[in-house]
């Protein structure tokens, strides 16, 4: 009988090297949780290209001890959510910028910073728990690394309806920044919050957000990842969704040498709703473009709905990846699970790699997924041109219409408009 080849060596090596390069925070209310996270990371080891979960995305740049430098983009656009009256919390290369941020006490909700929270905090006993739970059945070692080593982050607790949105702004100013941030959001029963995120964050950015929704709570999350071409990012969104709660998350990714966005949603209470959507526009002309959406939705309650809508527009050898999974546990009857992943390849060099999975252990369910890939519809293009629309404009129109289903996942019209404007700008720069 053939013995399995020793494969652990490489993993152990890179894990040890990465841990040695970490600056591990000490003390505070998270001390115990961080220690456990570090143990998890050591037990799992960092991912390698040979891992099935990283089949389409090479994690090397994310696991290397040192981050590769990334040029800072001179962003000439006005802030994406500038028109919204949001409470701003600004991080510059991972460091909290008090001068640029609004007064946290004015939010009407409880906000504190991870780096400043003392030994006693409501988030004690919660920090890292959703991440830990999200390690099964698939390991997410980069999230455990985050919980162990995060330098800062925000802790938000909402007990009623938040009077205004909260926006986390991640500025990137140093070419060599390597940043780890960890946020925890707790939304009490019936409470509601809109959370915005924008900006590239750092040359290498590792962000985790844990969201705990109480019964009947509502959470809207809209994220715009920065346009810097060379930046690399891995993000994890862990959510626990209680009965009757609503969870909605939308991400726009434009540019970036490497982006891996993982969403791990645990639908734990009956009649809850969870939607996660993404629009991606990637052009590999200036720098490589590789974007990966990895979603894992677990239905563990009766009568719940989940929806995944991912659209990717790829150009000049860009790569788009989608790995989405719906797991319906035994007893999660009356589940309605839907998943769509589509790519529009604007030229012959770009590629779309998808693995849309269903794993179902309950019979009274309605689950479906669809995935398509192709070029711009020539007939539609011809029609528009026959109506006098110039070629470039016709193409932009068709790209926007392709992305429309994902943008439609944003409930608030003003935010959807802000996203559409960004996309129009991106397309206009490429005409």
């Amino acid at each position, binding site marked *: *009988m*053939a*013995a*399995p*080849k020793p494969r652990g060596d490489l993993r152990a090596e890179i894990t040890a090297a990465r841990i040695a390069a970490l600056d591990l925070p000490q003390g505070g209310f998270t001390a115990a949780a961080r220690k456990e996270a570090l143990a998890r990371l050591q037990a799992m080891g960092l991912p390698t290209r040979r891992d*099935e979960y990283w089949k389409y995305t090479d994690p090397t740049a994310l696991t290397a001890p040192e981050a590769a430098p990334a040029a800072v983009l001179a962003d000439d656009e006005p802030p994406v959510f500038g028109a919204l009256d949001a409470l701003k919390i600004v991080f510059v290369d991972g460091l909290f910028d008090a001068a640029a941020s609004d007064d946290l006490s004015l939010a009407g909700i409880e906000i504190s910073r991870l780096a400043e929270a003392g030994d006693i905090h409501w988030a004690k006993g919660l920090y890292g728990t959703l991440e830990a739970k999200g390690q099964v059945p698939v390991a997410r070692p980069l999230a455990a690394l985050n919980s162990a080593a995060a330098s800062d982050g925000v802790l938000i607790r909402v007990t009623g309806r938040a009077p205004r949105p909260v926006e986390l702004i991640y500025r990137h100013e140093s070419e060599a920044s390597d940043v780890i941030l960890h946020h925890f959001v707790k939304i009490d029963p019936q409470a509601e919050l809109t959370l915005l995120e924008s900006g590239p964050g750092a040359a290498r950015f590792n962000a985790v957000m844990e969201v705990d929704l109480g019964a009947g709570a509502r959470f809207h999350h809209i994220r715009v990842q920065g346009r810097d071409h060379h930046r690399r990012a891995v993000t994890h969104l862990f959510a626990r969704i209680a009965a009757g709660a609503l969870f909605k998350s939308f991400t726009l990714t434009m540019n970036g040498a490497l982006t891996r966005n993982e969403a791990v949603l645990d639908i734990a209470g009956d009649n809850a709703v969870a939607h996660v959507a993404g629009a991606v526009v990637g052009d590999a002309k200036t720098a490589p473009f590789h974007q990966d959406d990895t979603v894992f939705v677990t239905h563990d309650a009766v009568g719940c709905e989940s929806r995944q809508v991912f659209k990717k527009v790829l150009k000049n050898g860009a790569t788009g990846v989608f790995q989405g999974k719906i797991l319906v546990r*035994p*007893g999660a*009857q009356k589940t309605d699970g839907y998943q769509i992943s589509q*790519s529009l*390849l*604007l*030229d*012959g*060099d*770009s*590629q*779309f*790699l*998808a*693995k*849309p*999975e*269903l*794993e*179902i*252990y*309950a*019979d*009274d*369910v*309605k*689950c*479906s*997924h*669809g*995935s*398509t*890939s*192709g*070029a711009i519809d020539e007939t539609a293009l011809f029609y528009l041109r026959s109506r006098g629309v110039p070629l470039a404009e016709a193409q932009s129109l068709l790209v926007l219409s392709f992305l429309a289903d994902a943008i439609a996942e944003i409930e608030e019209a003003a935010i959807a408009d802000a996203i559409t404007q960004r996309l129009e700008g991106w397309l206009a720069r490429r005409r």
Partner: protein
Amino acid sequence: MNPRSMNAQHEQGRRKAPEMNGNRPMALETDMQAPSLDVREGVDRETVETVANMGSYKYGWDTDIEMDYAPKGLSEDIIRLISAKNEEPDWMTDWRLQAYRRWLQMAEPRWAMLRYPQIDYQDQFYYAKPKSMTQRPKSLEDVDPKLLATYEKLGIPLKEQMLLAGVEGAEAVSPGRRVAVDAVFDSVSVGTTFKAELAKAGVIFCSISEAIREHPDLVRKYLGSVVPQSDNFFATLNSAVFSDGSFVYIPPNTRCPMELSTYFRINAENTGQFERTLIIADKGSYVSYLEGCTAPKRDIAQLHAAVVEIVLLDDAEVKYSTVQNWFPGDEEGRGGIYNFVTKRADCRGARSRVMWTQVETGSAITWKYPSCLLRGDDSQGEFYSIAIANNMQQADTGTKMVHLGKRTRSRIVSKGISAGRAQNTYRGLVSMHPRATDSRNYTQCDSLLIGDRCGAHTVPYIEVKNNSSRVEHEATTSKVDDDQLFYCRSRGMDEEEAVALVVNGFCREVLQALPMEFAMEAQALVAISLEGSVG
């Protein structure tokens, strides 16, 4: 699951199976032995009889035939022995040994959604041959009558006379329909029919061991050219130890005058069956190939690792249909076949076309991904599958469509049905290479769940590397529709009939892709496989 599944304790070289079966008498056995029974008529009878014998496995008997075994276990000596028994030339022996040495370096794949105990590869017989075959029979008359009786029970018209009898009006074999059969019993091919007539058309249809002796050039050129020796763990094992299988060569511009068929039967206990099939469709040729498999009921699991290679040159067309009905194990998951199969068609020529159709109802474990390499421009691959898993069965099956040539097309229709405590997984790959411009894929995989203790899973991989190709994938999972059931019940059907009808409707697209008689058999099999799953 029986944790001891793959181990057993009986001396080499001797049969002892009847006792094994003695404690579970088969009500069907006497009926099935009726000499007039043939496969077509069997369909109706089978349905009637199995309704009376709920959940029983029709092919669960075994035949007490004296067998010749090679010693248990696997080593270079065993491989040399298998090679020597088949009177193979040195290059073949070396080829096997090469595979064996590679296999020693490999680890058993565990990525499939299958749970089964560790297989002890040293606790298997790798060669079992009916004793009466030690002297290779000159004609079917020399074959052990017990063996022929076995095939009769299986409903295979092994003797040409039986088929001809049909034409003469004695039995219900439809006139004009003739099927050439190669039957593989445990490790060895026991007889191929219609050889003379096929030879007239230039078609070579024989066992692979015979082909290695009689047509070494063809075998040497194509064997391992589609599934390389060290393709994967199970294929490599097969390359080392395969004992027999079928060989088909269709010469250029020839339409094979009849359907070709292989029936595989595992009979001996503790024996792994490793057959290897090689089909070569030369330019402009056509063949339809049918494959059926059964095995006796046993408490311990048995290993089956087959390889099928199909080579298609320009404008060739091959239809490959399988009804896989290996023993699935009992209701508690004891016994059954562990079925690890590598099937691949290489559309080397332009405009070639291959169609895989499979009805997978048997086996305790199914690990099988019939694939198409679409290398020739304008070549076409199709995959139609019904996979039914009931009781404790586990199936992880699907296809790979690798588009390499321009304007290649593929279509995947997969219907998975889970009942009892079974797990059924569709796993597939659609890959559009950068050069495969203007290609097209359409995939549909639907799963049906019957009962709340089973699972249905879909794991497709989609890789698109050019933009002129279109790929579409759809998958759904649902349960048997209550309204449809209610309607059927209101028309006087009992629940089981109603479910069978709804399920047959669910599978219709795939059933239609089968050759007609096969389709009828499959339809009946669908109903039988689901017995006991309702209520």
